[in-house]
């Protein structure tokens, strides 16, 4: 069982800066866990603590039911893929992959077999004699993955492995990483700040913010039922519309059964529907279009509530006939509305 267990993990840097606070979650055997959050949220620190590259100030991390707090990185049975690949520049691709195995006194034929197997899976068999500097970014990425695969570790750790690649290659490698992880069935922890990458890769998504966990769960659950304002705004692109409603309400927005206390209401752009003025609906807005973004299959209308208020984004399928400056009305269904407490940022149970 190669599950990863985090219990009340905390990190305080020398100098008193608290980077992580009470992090606790379990990654089941074989799951693909993605840590996502804005830069500085502590996700990389957490990954490096699992790897053993950072000390653990408090709490306990265990891999496969064995506490690893005091173990050296090489004893934790993990393999890591770094953002800048960290290949040994003076070694051939073959030696890069074989180095860790040699250090572990793996017999030669076994090393040969494992490297060839990894090279076959990653389709880099023809590159084995080259030096890293003779490879393209995508090829280096594959070698870095190969170096992780040959070790057959309990856990794979990925530290933003795709952020040095161009957009097209990134999407291609993303699919490949996912397939590879499925085939090998190795528990993986993947750090990224790209929410799209996070959504597509994860079996289990951990959203972090300022050293805390905001929410843990399957990606769709986080998308459909964000527990905090932060998750609501972070997951999904373009982001969820989050409109603060003071006690008096705001101009241009009509909400049935409006809660009395101040509340933040959230609606995803894709849950809006354009409607004629005066259509009765649980939620209706009137806005003046300030910008139009056409991406082909869909169009995003950016507008200001009531012509001068908060910005709202509305998604329309296909092309839009509207013009900039035009006033439109959009409605949304009750079950697509999310309510949050402005004070705590937590989800409110409003029926």
């Amino acid at each position, binding site marked *: 069982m190669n599950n990863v267990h985090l219990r009340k993990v905390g990190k305080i840097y020398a100098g008193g800066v608290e980077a992580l606070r009470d992090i606790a979650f379990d990654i089941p055997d074989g799951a693909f866990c993605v840590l996502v959050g804005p830069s500085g949220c502590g996700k990389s620190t957490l990954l490096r603590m699992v790897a053993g590259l950072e000390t653990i100030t408090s709490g306990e991390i265990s891999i496969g039911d064995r506490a690893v707090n005091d173990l050296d*990185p090489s004893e934790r049975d993990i393999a890591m893929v*770094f953002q800048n690949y960290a290949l040994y520049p003076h070694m051939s691709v073959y030696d890069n992959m074989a180095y860790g195995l040699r250090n572990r006194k793996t017999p030669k034929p076994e090393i040969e077999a494992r490297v060839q197997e990894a090279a076959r899976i990653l389709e880099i068999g023809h590159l084995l004699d080259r030096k890293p500097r003779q490879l393209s970014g995508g090829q280096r990425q594959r070698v870095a993955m190969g170096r992780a695969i040959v070790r057959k570790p309990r856990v794979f750790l990925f530290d933003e492995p795709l952020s040095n690649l161009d957009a097209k290659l990134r999407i291609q490698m993303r699919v490949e990483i996912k397939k590879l992880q499925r085939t090998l069935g190795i528990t993986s922890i993947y750090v990224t700040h790209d929410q799209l990458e996070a959504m597509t890769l994860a079996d289990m998504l951990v959203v972090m913010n300022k050293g805390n966990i905001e929410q843990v769960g399957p990606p769709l659950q986080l998308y459909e039922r964000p527990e905090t304002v932060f998750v609501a705004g972070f997951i999904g692109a373009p982001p969820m519309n989050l409109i603060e409603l003071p006690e008096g309400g705001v101009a241009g927005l009509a909400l049935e059964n409006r809660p009395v206390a101040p509340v933040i209401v959230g609606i995803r752009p894709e849950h809006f529907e354009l409607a004629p003025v005066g259509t009765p609906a649980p939620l209706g807005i009137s806005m003046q279009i300030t910008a139009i973004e056409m991406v082909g299959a869909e169009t995003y209308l950016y507008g200001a509530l009531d012509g001068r208020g908060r910005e709202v984004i509305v998604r329309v399928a296909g092309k839009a006939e509207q013009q900039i400056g035009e006033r439109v009305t959009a409605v949304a269904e009750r079950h697509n509305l999310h309510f949050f407490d402005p004070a705590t940022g937590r989800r409110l149970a409003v029926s």
Partner: protein
Amino acid sequence: MVQRRSLLDIVPHFILALGVIIIAFPVYIAFVASTWDAATISNGQMPLWPGPHFLENYYRTIFIGTAKTTREPVGIMMLNSFVMAMCIAIGKIAISLISAFAVVYFRFPFRMAAFWTIFITLMLPVEVRIYPTYKIVADLRLLDTYAGLTIPLIASATATLLFRQFFMTVPDELVEASRIDGAGPMKFFVDTLVPLSITSVAAMFVIQFIYGWNQYLWPLLITTSDNMQTIVIGIKKMIVTQDALTEWQIAMATAVLAMLPPVIVVVAMQKLFVKGLTETEK
């Protein structure tokens, strides 16, 4: 347009050629002088082309030496100079690599104090600390030995600083990847850091070999027996004579021989040398 370009080509070439002539001519004269006999040189009418005594003069220089002044053949002096230069270059590189490794990768108490102590030795070349250093070498009975010739010159900060700067540019991820791959500090040093530093090592070797080869003051002080003298001192002894005629053809042959090893080292390591001082790709 065509004319302008050819003019632009000619001027720099002319200036460069002039520079080469100014620098190379004395060297050429030294070579010419080493191929004539003593009488031709000393009557002041030495021709500008090589003479007939090349083999004879160089044979005498290398295997017999001058009649009165140095009492040892130049072959022995070259060997001494070579051993000294090699020991200094290799010793400095070995010590500097290890100390730079310690300063950059380990957090030990007084790390920065250690670094600054090394740094301060930059201000203390042999010429400054000559009396205490001589005293120590004498007390250790190292006068007239290779150890006495080289060890006091090995301690220096330049190479340590160069390697420190280089190590600081090596990405941290390489260290971390090594740790995960199960390589301890020394294994990282031997398997990754030293191979990566190879061009810097070559550059340092060239600089330090020439530094060692050109040493004059220190060998002059601590070598007294004839069979320990170095070639640079040999030239000096040949020229300044009290009761004998200067054998110019021998002195010039020695000068030409003294130039050869540094030239060979530079030419052989030129490619690595330039890379080591300019390359930034990791």
